C-alpha cells in the first residue's frame, strides 16, 4: 500500500502538532544560527559551503530578505514541517518589519527537504511556487548527487521571484521553473477577508499594546542570534516571523 507522498505526511504533521504532549519521535536539537549555511550532515564541502554562504550574503545585502540553509543528518522521525517551525522560531531569519526570512531544510537520511517561507514572503512565494522549485530544481539535483548546485539554483530562482526584474544578478545556468497559473492564488473573497482580518488585528494589536511592545506575538523577540563567527558580516536572525508557509518534498 502506498501513501501519497507529502500531502498525507503534512496532514499527519498537522495532526501531531495538536497533540503537543504525545510525541512519537525524538526531538533533534535545533543548532545555533551560526551562519547562512549550517551543514551538520557533511553534504557540502567547505568550498561549496563558502560559495553558498557568499551567495546568501549577497541575497541579504540586495534587500531580498534573509535566507538560510540547514542540512541535518536525520529528523529522527519528526515531520519536517514541525522541525521547520522549530528552526524558524529559534533562528528567526528575516527582518522584524518585513518578515522576509526563508529557510531551506534538507534531511539527508530521510531524503526529505522543505522550503520554509517567512510570513512576509508568502504572497510572493506561495506554497505552490515553493513546491515547483522543490520538484523542478532541488529534487533532480539531489537525485543526481549535486546538492550544492541544486541549492545555488534554488536561491537564484527564489531571488528571481522576489525581484523579477531588479538588480539581482541571476545565474545563467539556472533552469527556468514552470510555475502554475496565478489562478491558484487566494480567491478574491478570501484575499478580501484576509485583508479585513489583518486590518482588524492591526487595530486591535495597536490598541492592546500601546506603549507595551509587541507582546501579542508571543513574548519579546530574542535579539539577533549568532555573532558573525562565520564568513564576516553575518549577524544572525533579525526577528522574522513564520506561520508555516512553504512546501516539502522528497528525493
Amino acid at each position, binding site marked *: 500500500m502506498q501513501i*501519497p507522498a507529502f500531502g498525507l505526511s*503534512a496532514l499527519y*504533521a*498537522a495532526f501531531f502538532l495538536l497533540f*503537543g504532549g504525545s510525541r512519537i519521535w525524538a526531538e533533534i536539537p535545533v543548532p545555533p544560527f551560526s551562519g547562512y549555511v549550517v551543514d551538520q550532515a557533511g553534504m557540502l564541502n567547505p568550498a561549496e559551503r563558502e560559495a553558498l554562504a557568499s551567495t546568501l550574503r549577497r541575497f541579504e545585502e540586495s534587500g531580498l530578505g534573509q535566507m538560510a540553509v540547514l542540512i541535518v543528518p536525520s529528523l529522527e522521525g519528526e515531520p519536517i514541517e514541525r522541525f521547520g517551525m522549530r528552526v524558524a522560531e529559534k533562528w528567526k531569519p528575516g527582518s522584524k518589519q518585513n518578515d522576509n526570512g526563508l529557510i531551506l531544510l534538507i534531511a539527508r537520511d530521510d531524503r526529505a527537504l522543505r522550503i520554509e517561507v517567512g510570513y512576509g514572503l508568502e504572497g510572493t512565494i506561495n506554497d505552490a511556487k515553493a513546491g*515547483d522549485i522543490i520538484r523542478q530544481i532541488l529534487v533532480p539535483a539531489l537525485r543526481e548527487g549535486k546538492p550544492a548546485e541544486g541549492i545555488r539554483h534554488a536561491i537564484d530562482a527564489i531571488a528571481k521571484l522576489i525581484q523579477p526584474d531588479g538588480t539581482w544578478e541571476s545565474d545563467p545556468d539556472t533552469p527556468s521553473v514552470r510555475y502554475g497559473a496565478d489562478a491558484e492564488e487566494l480567491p478574491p473573497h478570501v484575499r478580501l477577508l484576509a485583508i479585513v482580518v489583518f486590518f482588524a488585528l492591526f487595530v486591535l494589536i495597536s490598541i492592546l499594546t500601546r506603549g507595551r511592545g509587541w507582546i501579542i506575538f508571543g513574548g519579546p523577540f530574542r535579539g539577533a542570534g549568532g555573532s558573525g563567527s562565520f564568513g564576516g558580516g553575518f549577524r544572525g536572525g533579525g526577528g522574522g516571523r513564520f506561520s508555516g508557509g512553504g512546501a516539502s518534498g522528497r528525493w
Partner: protein
Amino acid sequence: MKGWVIALIVVGVIVLAGIGWAVSTYNGMVRDQEEIATRFSDIDVQLMRRADLIPNLVNTVKGYAAHEDKIFTEVANARSRLLAAATPVEKMAANDQLTGALGRLLAIAESYPALKANENFLRLQDELAGTENRIGYARAKYNEAVRSFNTRIKVFPASLIATRSGFEPKPYFEAEPAAKTAPRVEF
C-alpha cells in the same frame, strides 16, 4: 492624632494597591481573551482558505477518476459542514472530518499515475499541505493562548477577580477522539 493619620495613610495605600492590582489583573485577563480571539481568527482564515482550495482539487481529481463518486460526495459534504459551522468547536470538528475525507481522496489519487504526475494537482497538494500546516501551527498557538488564560483565571488570588467578572475557561482545540485515528485507506 499622628498615629491615626499614619494608620489612615497605610490603609489608603493598601486599598489603592489592591485596586491597582485588581484593575491590572482584570485588564490582563481581557488582553488574554483578545489574544485568544486573535489566534482563533488566524485559524479561521486558514480554514476558509482550505475550503476554497477543495473544489479545484476535486475537479482535478475528477478529470482522472470520474467514477469515484462516493469520495467526492463525502468531501463535498464535509466541506459544506465546515462552511456552515458557526462556533469554534463546531468548526474544528468539521475540519477534522474534512481532514479524514481529504486523506481518503488523496489516497485514491495514488492509484492514478497520470493524476499523480499532473503539475496542477501537485501544486494544489502543496497549497493544501501548506494550509494544513498553518492550521496546525495556528492551532498550537491558540492552545498556548488558552492555556495561559485558563491558568491565569484559576490561580489564586486572581481567580477571585475572574469569578466576579465571569471569566470562564476556554476550550482547547484538540482533535476529536474519532478524528485522531489516521484516515483509513480503502481500495
